[in-house]
């Protein structure tokens, strides 16, 4: 029997599509998919790609001032990984028909968002530790379930990314652990970094479930596998235990083990702060975007030179 999709109604196609997803069969680039699925994925994946790219900036800030050569090599490797993550995700997004230029344009004009966490400043060396532990930690919590996302290229990119992220979190924790065993000043610095990065990290999981209207559809499509609050709770539970190893505290007076729930209770999130940063008024929004645009513009001659070089080499080959 020949199944020709050109003779099928949209409803039939949608049913075949959802049946595949329900059966955990991955959707690949050339398969039929609803427009809304494609659009939602392009937005989600490109936002994620932009976050990896902008996410290099706060850490790059400390590369030249890393305290030892070992730390410096590690930080360079981590930042380079983030560039790689951005590229995996841009490439995966392009399989949905979005052009790279178009995606970059959306980032540079502020039309596309990236994770708000990168709009906070990195004030001390300890921030490199807190970012690795908390920010990469929260990212991992979000990303591991996406290794099973329904869109093949996305899931494969996430598998690669998750493999690499684990070192990011471990090196961060190691930085904090070292500081936690240091002088009184170093311990203060360690606690201060945790104090500043904790709440923004908790906010990385996004609005509460009752304020995320698209979650149900995304779950049905399996491009989101757990709700924001479920992941946030997991993150809090894990960190509340890990912080004990550092002998530090989490800046939340309401953080308390709840025997009945078998989870940690935690304090209210300042959603005004969250939305304020999302809307562009965080401490570094303008600086981050300006740095991105500048890097792109100042890199224009490199792109042009590479094109010219490729053309010249092609000509030489033809003459040979």
């Amino acid at each position, binding site marked *: 029997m020949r199944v020709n999709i050109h003779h099928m109604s949209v409803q039939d196609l949608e049913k075949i599509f959802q049946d595949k997803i329900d059966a955990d069969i991955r959707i690949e680039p050339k*398969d039929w998919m609803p427009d809304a699925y494609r659009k939602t994925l392009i937005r989600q994946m490109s936002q994620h790609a932009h976050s990896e790219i902008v996410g290099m900036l706060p850490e790059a800030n400390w590369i030249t001032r890393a305290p030892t050569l070992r730390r410096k090599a590690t930080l360079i490797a981590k930042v380079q990984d983030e560039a790689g993550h951005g590229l995996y995700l841009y490439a995966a997004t392009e399989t949905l028909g979005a052009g790279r230029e178009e995606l970059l344009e959306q980032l540079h004009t502020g039309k596309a968002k990236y994770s708000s966490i990168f709009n906070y400043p990195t004030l001390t060396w300890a921030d490199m530790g807190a970012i690795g532990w908390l920010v990469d930690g929260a990212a991992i919590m979000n990303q591991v379930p996406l290794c099973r996302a329904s869109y093949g290229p996305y899931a494969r990119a996430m598998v690669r990314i998750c493999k690499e992220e684990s070192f990011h979190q471990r090196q961060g924790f190691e930085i904090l652990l070292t500081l936690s065993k240091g002088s009184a000043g170093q311990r203060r610095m360690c606690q201060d970094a945790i104090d500043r990065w904790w709440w923004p990290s908790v906010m990385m999981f996004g609005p509460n479930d009752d304020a995320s209207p698209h979650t149900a559809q995304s779950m049905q499509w399996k491009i989101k596998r757990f709700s924001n609050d479920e992941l946030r709770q997991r993150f809090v539970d894990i960190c509340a235990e890990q912080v004990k190893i550092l002998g530090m505290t989490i800046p939340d007076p309401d953080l308390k083990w709840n025997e009945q729930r078998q989870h940690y209770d935690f304090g209210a999130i300042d959603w005004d702060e969250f939305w304020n940063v999302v809307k562009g008024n965080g401490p570094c929004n303008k600086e981050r975007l300006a740095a991105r645009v500048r890097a792109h513009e100042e890199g224009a001659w490199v792109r042009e030179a590479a094109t010219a070089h490729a053309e010249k080499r092609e000509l030489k080959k033809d003459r040979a």
Partner: protein
Amino acid sequence: MAENQWPLWEVFIRSKQGLDHKHAGSLHAADAQMAIENARDVYTRRMEGVSIWVVESKYVHASSPDDATSFYEPANDKVYRHPTFYDLPDELKHM
């Protein structure tokens, strides 16, 4: 910001001698040499490869997923192509 976009390349990586090259992903590059160098930086930062193939994406031709059912149909009813199809006594060894 009209800029000429570098073409897209598909990247295939052999993870070690004796194994096939496997699709790793794609990237943009001005030419093949640059594509190979970029592929090294993007896809083999942890010794994931000993050999890289790149091919410009526009040269990849693919079977159509829409016709998958009929396209692979010929193999569907030929169980006799598998060794387990044949009924042989247990006493028969080394086969």
